[in-house]
């Protein structure tokens, strides 16, 4: 284990620091609130000669991801950052990056999608991209955003993965919130991520290849099946890299961050920063004798279905919190709820699960809101009656 140096950093700057230590070959990015700070800080490292990175200030996010794809295909280690509508503008290229199996790392500072226009946090941007073939990390804190960014490089570039990774954190809440962030020594990060030795590179003119070529009815299906297999079977690699990083940093990197789950009767499953509020409420409830718990998946794609079901299967009632709506899905539920309930069904576990949509457009979700959700769960557990499937926290009714 190495000793981290602690600094007061906002989450965006924590990611910039990770990028500085990773020292990627190419960063192509376009500014968008609340991500701007990430590449703004990083561009200063470029301007000051602190990193060797070729920084490409492009004209849009579509161009940013396009430039990243080109650079990655050329054989470079590539990173970028975006949020919200910027991510939406990358859409076409997200699928191309994954389909070409390019290990690009994208840090997302989650923000609501327009319209109406809103710059604050929710997960509708990255959740909309959940089927694009990327790995998705969600960070509770700036510290986790820093840690996930470093792990993401090693996972993406693993010879048995070669897929792009999206590393998300909550806009403003952690993105602009200053906290105590432990940075590994520069040398430790350099050694952890190692060098990038691409299997194929367009600039390797001694071994010329064609990438992104026409894939007709005779191979497209096979390539998609292969892509799906890799994403769905890379969880052990994610776990191994996380373990290695955990030993290096001394910070817990488990795929699921569980609190109070050993004997929980009622539990909440929630991503990112809201897990912190939930944990504090669980602590208060436990002091009053309520067997409450919280599960925070650090990874959403590939979906850790078995692990999540194992974590909650002995509960009497569970709430899944979603900071995004899958519009038109059953009851207007959210994506995490959809995935988790289908995992429960397919693994043969039956228990009452409700969905809470919360925090859209940056709406605060207070400890009292979480406490009310736990009160609902206790009632469901006591009566065995599930009641309303999709509920809303912090919405004016």
């Amino acid at each position, binding site marked *: 284990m190495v000793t981290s140096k602690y600094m007061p950093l906002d989450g965006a700057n924590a990611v910039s620091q990770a990028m500085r230590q990773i020292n990627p070959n190419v960063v192509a990015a376009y500014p968008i609130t609340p991500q701007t700070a990430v590449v703004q800080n990083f561009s200063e490292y470029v301007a000051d000669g602190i990193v060797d990175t070729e920084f490409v200030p492009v004209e849009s996010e579509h161009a940013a991801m396009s430039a990243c794809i080109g650079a990655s295909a050329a054989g470079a280690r590539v990173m970028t950052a975006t949020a919200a509508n910027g991510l939406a503008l990358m859409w076409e290229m997200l699928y191309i990056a994954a*389909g*070409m*199996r*390019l290990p690009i790392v994208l840090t997302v500072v989650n923000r609501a999608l327009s319209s109406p226009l809103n710059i604050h946090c929710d997960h509708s941007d990255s959740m909309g991209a959940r089927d694009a073939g990327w790995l998705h990390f969600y960070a509770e804190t700036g510290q986790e955003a820093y840690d996930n960014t470093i792990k993401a490089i090693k996972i993406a570039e693993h010879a048995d993965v*070669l897929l792009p990774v999206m590393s998300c954190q909550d806009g403003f809440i952690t993105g602009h919130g200053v906290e105590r962030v432990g940075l590994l020594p520069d040398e430790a990060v350099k050694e952890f991520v190692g060098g990038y030795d691409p299997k*194929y590179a367009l600039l390797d003119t001694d*071994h*010329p*290849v*064609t*990438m*992104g*070529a*026409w*894939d007709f009815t*005779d*191979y497209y*299906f*096979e*390539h998609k*099946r*292969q892509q799906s*297999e*890799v994403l769905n079977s890379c969880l052990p690699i994610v776990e191994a890299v996380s373990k290695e990083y955990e030993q290096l940093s001394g910070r817990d990197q488990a795929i699921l961050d569980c609190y109070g789950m050993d004997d929980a009767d009622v539990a909440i499953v929630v991503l990112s920063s809201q897990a912190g509020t939930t944990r504090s409420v669980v602590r208060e409830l436990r002091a009053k004798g309520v067997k409450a718990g919280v599960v925070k998946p650090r990874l959403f794609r590939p979906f850790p279905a078995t692990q999540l079901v194992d974590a909650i299967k002995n509960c009497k009632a569970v709430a899944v919190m979603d900071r995004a709506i899958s519009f038109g899905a059953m009851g207007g539920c959210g994506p995490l709820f959809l995935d988790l309930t289908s995992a429960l069904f397919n693994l043969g576990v039956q228990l009452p699960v409700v969905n809470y949509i919360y925090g859209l457009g940056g709406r605060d979700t207070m400890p009292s809101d979480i406490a009310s959700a736990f009160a609902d769960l206790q009632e469901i557990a006591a009566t065995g009656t599930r009641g309303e499937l999709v509920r809303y926290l912090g919405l004016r009714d």
Partner: protein
Amino acid sequence: MAEKQAPRLDLPWRDARPGGVVVETGNSETYITGTWRTMRPVRDMDQCTQCLICWIMCPDSAITVEDGKVAAFDYAHCKGCGICAEQCPVNIKQPHSVTGNLGKVIQMVPEGDE
């Protein structure tokens, strides 16, 4: 040019090359696109001035050149887009050797109309 080997079209999904990377460079030559054609370009070789504009403009490299002169259309790859006929700058004085019409050195005729 060496004979290119066509990619295998029967590999199971586990054996397909990740990301669809093509390591056998130039094998698009083995992909016969001439069957897509509904219109065929024909040239009056006697009235052609050898300006090579058709060769420059052809998007499929389907006009073969030998010793600096256009030799033939590569009908295995020509998709019949008609760009060569459109771009041909030479208005012929005599009826076209293939179509019998006045117009350009390169003209388009329907496929199957022998």
